[in-house]
């Protein structure tokens, strides 16, 4: 799975590729994203491409959160489409993840967090 990243200051932005993240490709994503996240601490997932996520896809994103949290890092989600948002709410993951409407909102939140010394 080809993962393109963009770095703004010390924040890594990953645009999750493809329209779907389901049991059919979640394993592959999990493996490839782990390598990308390895050197990062602050990460934003841009989900604008994703039209469909199932429980396996959700599990894969959850594993990213845990990987980053485990080393004191941070993961923000943004640009979520309606059906993906619906799934997150269905399994109450909108309470676990920090979800922002736009990429700018997500970046601002990471910066503010730094300024407030958190």
């Amino acid at each position: 799975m080809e993962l393109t990243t963009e770095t703004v200051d010390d924040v890594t932005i990953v645009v999750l590729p493809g329209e779907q993240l389901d049991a059919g490709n979640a394993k592959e994503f999990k493996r490839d994203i782990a390598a990308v996240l390895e050197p990062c601490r602050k990460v934003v997932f841009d989900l604008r491409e994703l039209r469909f996520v199932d429980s396996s896809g959700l599990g894969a994103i959850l594993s990213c959160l845990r990987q980053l949290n485990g080393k004191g890092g941070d993961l923000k989600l943004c640009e979520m489409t309606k059906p993906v948002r619906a799934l997150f709410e269905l399994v109450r993951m909108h309470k676990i993840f920090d979800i922002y409407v736009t990429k700018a909102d997500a970046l601002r939140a990471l910066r503010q967090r730094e300024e407030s010394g958190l």
Partner: protein
Amino acid sequence: MWRSPVRRFLSPPLHADGVFHSTDPAGGSGGEGPASRVTKTELRRELAEHRQTEAELEDARNFLDSVLEHLPVMLFVKDAEHLRFVRWNKTEEEALGIDRSVAIGKSDYDFFPEEQARFFEAKDRAVLTGGKMVDIPEEAIQTAHRGLRFLHTIKVPVLGTDGKPKYLVGISEDITDRKRAQEELARAREQEAEIGFRIQQTLLLEQPPQDLPGVRAAALTIPSQRIDGDFYDFFNHRDRCLDVIVGDVMGKGIPAALLGAATKSHFLQALSRLISLSEPGTLPEPKDIVTLAHSEVARQLIELESFVTVCYARLDLVNRRLDLVDCGHTTTIHFQAGTGTCRLLQGENLPLGVSEREIFEQMSIPVEPGDVLLFYSDGLTETRNASGELFGIERLADCVGRYGRLEPRDLIERIRLEAVAFAGSERFGDDLTCVAVRIEERQLPQARAELEISSDLKELARARMFVRDVCARLAAPVDEDTLNQLELAMTEAASNVMRHAYSGRTDRRIQLSAEIYEDRIVLRLHHLGQSFDPDAIRPPKFDGTEEGGFGMYIISQTVDEVRYHRDERGRNCISMIKKRR
């Protein structure tokens, strides 16, 4: 003549050799005075008498010895003070494998493990202190040559002339074999119950069809200790008719169960034979099916002096009619949705196996959507309460009248609860079987489609596309939110089948089907993998600590109803139903 020595047996001391010795001649009362006062003749006479008595006593003792020695029960005597054996009969020798020459003068501690010896001693002391006979129904004893044996023992204290315990007599019977036989019998009974239960579950009781357009069916079975041979089965005729057959064999246990299974298979055979003889598109009449099945089983039933009550019901879903052949079975209850009342349906036919020349009559009753038919075994109506009153048909019909509008499975649960409350017990003397069938509004789907996919997770996208495509065929489109939820439900269900039912194998097949009705969308997945037990799945964790376990929860949240069942072709089927808004 040996009475007197027997009485005396209880008082004279016994000697270590276990044989009675006289020290106090019975005729000794006359020998008090000095010999000088007695004349020689008198003395001679007395001596002769004495000898005579002695001889008689000796005979009596030998007789008694012989009796005790050859008693078929174990007999021992212990002295009261030290509890050492002073007598030990032949049966005791044989039973314990200890010769009397070894036993006499010894105590229990010399032969048995300490724990057992202590148990024996405690009992002995209790007998001696209590001064009364004690019956020990069962005691274990470790024998040298025959392993652990079980004895039934009676211990009796023997008092001396001073009124104090002098001896302890024990009589034991080896009950090991009897005990084992009883245990064996209990095990055999248990096994029979288990076999009966298995026959019942596998041969007699079919699961009602879960996913038939036009009917909803549910069944209940509560097995009793000994099965009754109740049976039921369902035949679906191309979704146009549903045949329900319920039966009850006279008698109990494995014979009844086997007879039930045989009768059921004769019905199946009769049905398939008549179908093959019928004009295409027509079905054989229930009365003809019963007649043919009966002709096959009647002779055997009569020879076995048994009979079977049967109710063969055909629900014609197209013509909204019930055809019923009742052969002495319990009265069928017909809940009429229009009036909310119950009608009792009873035919005139004799049970199968009563008369070889029985001509079976069939009755026809119109039915409407919402109507419920309740079939049951007499185990239900003949349930008794504490005061011996029968549950009865009125109570049952009343219950059906009250809960007739519930889903069939909820109706059956209500009936079960009422029967349990009435009987005051969760267990019943007879098997309790009950089948409820509700007629539904018959609708034709607005769209339907089928697709076969492989069990490869890469196929999930195709499964979603299938859902989207069938929904796109409708004149009035399905809203996007509903569509997204259907896609999710289909993906999660298919993914479960691939990963769990097929254990990750990618070369198996899954058949998808979709039917869209005016008020609902039905998605089905048919597979030949491991069946699910949805109850075994625990709810997911919503705190982010676990990455998996959301699948079943997502399905339950995105559709209105999920059913796991076997379809008519024996495949496992997951049906998901979503109401349309």
